[in-house]
């Protein structure tokens, strides 16, 4: 509705200046949502940590009155608190840790993190948990480790990779919209202001909210709001959504590894099925032993680099699978030691 006719002289002067100046630029709508989600998650993490600290202070004060009674329990808690449970395998930039949310210290590759630690990361990073899980975190992620099998995601995104065939204990990712349990899987959870997105690449996860429980299987993404509504949509294992996790994958040690093992790793990391053109090609891949290193290379790049040193090639016309064949029709299938 335009009510410019109603303007008095005072209004008219202001209106003239403003029209001459023009509207201020507004950030794009999608950007507002993204930034709001990230900032909101960070704010919640800050608020929760402050509340936890306050609760702890009260608990500490109360414990003075019951020091003898509580001694045994306290000792157990202290013993658990700080116990290392994971190692930072790879970090692309700065990470910080605090056990009290105020005194942050820089941490990096090779360092251990433990129960009670609050970690925030400006960079992508890969963590190896002692229970066998590989956990990757995206830029701008904040989390805390509540127990050896419980990870609280406060902001950002996490990718959990439980390798098939390797026994892992139960592992819970707690978020403001529910807790996520997995059954041998690759999945990621991304926080939003009003909920979470849980995408499953392999296996199955269960998301338990307040009085609700949703199961997602491979190829599904659940959009769960904090109010409990659930939206379900398909997602390909090779969708762009997974790219960040692939880029921060823990390095694959190719030294003396078989080409088959490397190809299986690359297929899993890129979410594409591995296909051999023939039994002869597969036999060749099994017989090839690799040497050297692909550290720092994203799986797609590592795949090209490694295959270039073997008699095998990937069929580049097929994007949805990794199809391996001979580089030339008369190539031999003899075992070779190769250095990319």
């Amino acid at each position, binding site marked *: 509705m335009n009510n410019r006719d109603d303007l008095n002289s005072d209004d008219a002067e202001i209106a003239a200046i403003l029209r*001459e*100046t023009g509207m201020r630029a507004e950030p794009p709508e999608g950007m507002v949502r993204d930034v709001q989600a990230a900032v909101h998650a960070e704010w919640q993490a800050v608020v929760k940590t402050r509340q936890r600290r306050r609760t702890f202070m009260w608990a500490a004060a109360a414990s003075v009155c019951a020091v003898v009674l509580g001694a045994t329990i306290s000792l157990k808690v202290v013993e658990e608190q700080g116990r290392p449970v994971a190692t930072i395998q790879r970090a692309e930039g700065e990470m910080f840790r605090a056990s009290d949310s105020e005194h942050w210290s820089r941490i990096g590759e090779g360092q251990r993190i433990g129960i009670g630690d609050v970690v925030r990361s400006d960079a992508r990073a890969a963590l190896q948990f002692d229970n066998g899980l590989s956990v990757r975190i995206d830029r701008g992620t904040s989390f805390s480790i509540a127990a050896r099998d419980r990870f609280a995601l406060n902001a950002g995104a996490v990718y959990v990779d439980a390798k098939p065939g390797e026994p892992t204990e139960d592992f819970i990712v707690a978020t403001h919209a529910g807790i996520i349990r997995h059954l041998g899987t690759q999945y990621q959870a991304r926080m939003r202001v009003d909920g979470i997105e849980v995408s499953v690449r392999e296996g199955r996860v269960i998301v338990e909210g307040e009085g609700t429980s949703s199961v997602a299987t491979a190829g599904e993404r659940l959009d769960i709001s904090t109010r409990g509504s659930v939206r379900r949509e398909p997602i390909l294992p090779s969708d762009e959504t997974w790219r960040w996790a692939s880029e921060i994958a823990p390095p694959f040690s190719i030294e003396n590894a078989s080409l088959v093992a490397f190809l299986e790793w690359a297929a899993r990391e890129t979410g594409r099925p591995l296909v051999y053109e023939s039994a002869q090609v597969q036999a060749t891949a099994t017989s090839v032993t690799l040497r050297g290193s692909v550290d720092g290379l994203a799986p797609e790049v590592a795949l090209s680099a490694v295959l270039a040193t073997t008699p095998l090639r990937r069929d580049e016309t097929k994007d949805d699978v990794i199809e391996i064949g001979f580089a030339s029709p008369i190539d031999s299938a003899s075992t070779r030691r190769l250095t990319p």
Partner: protein
Amino acid sequence: MKKIVEADAELIALMLKGDEAAFRRFFETYFPRLYRFAAPRLDGDPDAAKEVVQATLIKAMRNLGNYRGEAAVFSWLCQICRRQIIDHVRVHRRHASRLALVEDSDEMQRVLEAIAAPSADEPLHGYSADETRLIVQSVLDRLPNRYGDVLEWKYIEGRSVEEIAELLGVGQIAVQSMLARARVAFRSALETVFGVAASDLISGMRGH
């Protein structure tokens, strides 16, 4: 100035208590302003501006407890944002030529900081039409209580008092009173910054 800082300190205190409405108010008020602050300093690159503003706000969240109310929240955010811009430029080696805007001169910063407390500050003269528009937009961003937004909605978009009341979730009388205060604050800020009355400013803008 004191009133703005008190209101800001109250907003931050509510946010530290976990008040969702306070967070929304904070974000809706300051995100667009910071975006407009960062974008021209990064050559108008929206991705760079997004990265910088997100980093600024995340840093601000981490330091909410340290906000002492010694300056307006927007000034505090701009300080953090300036450092983020410098870091971004160092890493990406881009936008370097556009880092210094007319708003970044010491003199302009002093005057913009003083918007809420008009004093005998030296007014500013001799800006081009584009610079004048940019400064007027910065003035709108520095007005308290979303005054800049209501002025734009009313006088550029031509929205009615009822529509603005709906947008802000308040009553129509509150909007009328807010508009009156916004006009006074805007006029006063323009006079502080440009050293001329609003009527002279408009003829100057048209004359360029």
